[in-house]
């Protein structure tokens, strides 16, 4: 159990809603954005949420977005560990003709170079759970006294290959994200650059703990039994009981199979489900960046008193659940989970220390 926790020292985000969190929140409060059609392959189009930055140069755009997201975090110790969480890395640059780098770590080191980073650099690649896995590692390094702070950088930028690959697997919704809806048809991918700095210094948001479990039974999807085991482990690691969770930030990407498995697994843990929320309809599924991007956006929404309005889709009667239409009256403990591709099942438990004091 790792109850001592680490604290959210800073956060920055560029996503389809805006180039930084203030602009993203303003856009969300005004009704959000719709995905645009993206050409994944000749004559193959899928919707996608893209960051509003039209620079066609992949490297120049990526460097600018990364620097801006980290700057939005506020002061960070550049000798601390840096975790780059990404599933597509620099594939978009390769598609533009950039040469292959000598190895994968080189791109992570290039990103560290954009930031004048001097600390150890890790690239974490566990598909959709990459950022959560990185955040857990950062949290434990701090908890073990091996680091005073650490930066997790979730990075998922435009590339045709990810979209084409998920399209080939028939995992993409051809229209729009419809989490938990009766007619949901798959994921809608999104871009994000998210920076989350964890550290020892007391702050409003505390990371209490979490868990990560791999299931080999379905390399492309979630399993209800593993969801159940993973959530039990996350709660135990955080030193809280299921009844104390006030909100579950779901994966709920709109996948017919995964949404059903996620809800079934949660119902096995929570006799009475707490409020449910999702951000996939607002920014899409940002793959390896999702854990950090959704943590940054969710905590910023709560800080600002903004609640992401659920999409107006007819709910699936078989799931018998609904997304919370407004902010729950009490929000002390939040379970934030990401599931799916690569058999990954991972969650963090966040505590609003301001709510705890009140």
């Amino acid at each position, binding site marked *: 159990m790792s109850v001592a926790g680490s604290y959210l020292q800073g956060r920055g985000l560029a996503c389809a809603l805006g180039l930084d969190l203030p602009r993203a929140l303003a856009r969300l409060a005004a009704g959000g954005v719709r995905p645009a059609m993206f050409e*994944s*392959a*000749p004559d*193959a189009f899928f919707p996608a949420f893209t960051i509003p930055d039209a620079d066609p140069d992949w490297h120049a755009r990526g460097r600018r977005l990364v620097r801006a997201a980290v700057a939005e975090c506020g002061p960070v110790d550049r000798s601390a560990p840096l975790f780059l969480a990404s*599933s597509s890395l620099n*594939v978009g640059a*390769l*598609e533009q003709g950039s040469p*292959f780098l000598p*190895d*994968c*770590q080189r791109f*992570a*080191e290039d990103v560290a170079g954009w930031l004048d980073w001097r600390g*150890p*650099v*890790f*690239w*974490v*690649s*566990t*598909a959709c*759970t*990459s950022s959560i*896995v990185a955040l*857990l*590692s950062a949290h*434990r*390094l701090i908890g*073990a006294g*091996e680091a005073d702070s650490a930066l997790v950088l979730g990075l998922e930028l435009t590339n*045709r*290959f990810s979209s*084409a*690959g*998920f*399209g*080939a*697997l028939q995992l993409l919704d051809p229209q729009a994200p419809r989490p938990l809806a009766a007619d949901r048809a798959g994921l809608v991918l999104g871009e994000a650059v998210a920076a989350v700095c964890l550290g020892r210094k007391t702050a409003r948001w505390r990371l209490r703990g979490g*868990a*990560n*479990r*791999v*299931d*080999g*039974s*379905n*390399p*492309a999807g979630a399993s209800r039994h*593993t969801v159940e*085991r993973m959530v039990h482990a996350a709660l135990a690691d955080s030193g809280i009981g299921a009844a104390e969770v006030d909100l579950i930030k779901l994966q709920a990407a709109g996948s017919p199979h995964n949404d059903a498995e996620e809800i079934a697994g949660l119902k096995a843990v929570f006799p009475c489900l707490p409020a449910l929320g999702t951000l996939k309809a607002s920014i899409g599924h940002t793959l390896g960046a999702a854990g950090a991007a959704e943590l940054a956006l969710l905590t910023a929404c709560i800080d600002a008193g903004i609640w992401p309005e659920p999409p107006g889709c007819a709910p699936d009667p078989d799931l018998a659940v609904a997304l919370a239409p407004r902010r729950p009256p009490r929000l002390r403990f939040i379970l934030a989970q990401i599931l799916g*591709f*690569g*058999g*990954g099942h991972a969650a963090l438990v966040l505590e609003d220390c301001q709510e705890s004091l009140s």
Partner: protein
Amino acid sequence: MKLWRIVGRHFDDPPPDDWRQRLATRLGERPRRVGAWVELALYGALQCLDDAGEAGLPDAALLSLSTLHGPDIALRAALAEAHDGLPLPIGFLTSQPGQALPALARYLNWHGEGRCLSSRAPALALQLACIEAGPAGLLAGWVDEDGPGRSLWLRLLPEPGPAPTLVGGVFETLADPAVTHLALTGAQLHLGRSPLERAHG
């Protein structure tokens, strides 16, 4: 400084020419829907567990797979395929590093915490895993396909007993079967040789 006992090791570098055949023999089948990089990871991980005398990896153990290149060869092939249309699903799957974990979970009969990551210094990935692992220990691997390939693995358990004399060492020294214990400060390895036993003997 936390002390670890090496209870299983597979450090053949490079692997034997017939490693794929040996893997198929060990499993009783060729692994399905995985690429060569994942097969190489499976080969080393199973050899390591065999060395530890374990039929599977306990669910409470941490699995850390470290790589510098990942499934780079499969990625290049899938990118070329995707140039003119949607890639084949199997091509896309085998190009994703994260797909190694469900394969390892399936063949190691394990449902635990795992990650695939890269770091320039191999000992850094080991240090991170040692910080995060609990009483069931960890299985750590370093797998790359480039050149002759390599699939190096260690099975570690916390050592509650007295520490042998530890001296500074480099990552490659872990291949020495006489090295029975390790500890880390940062990326600095400290290695110990037990005078009484071979680690898993």
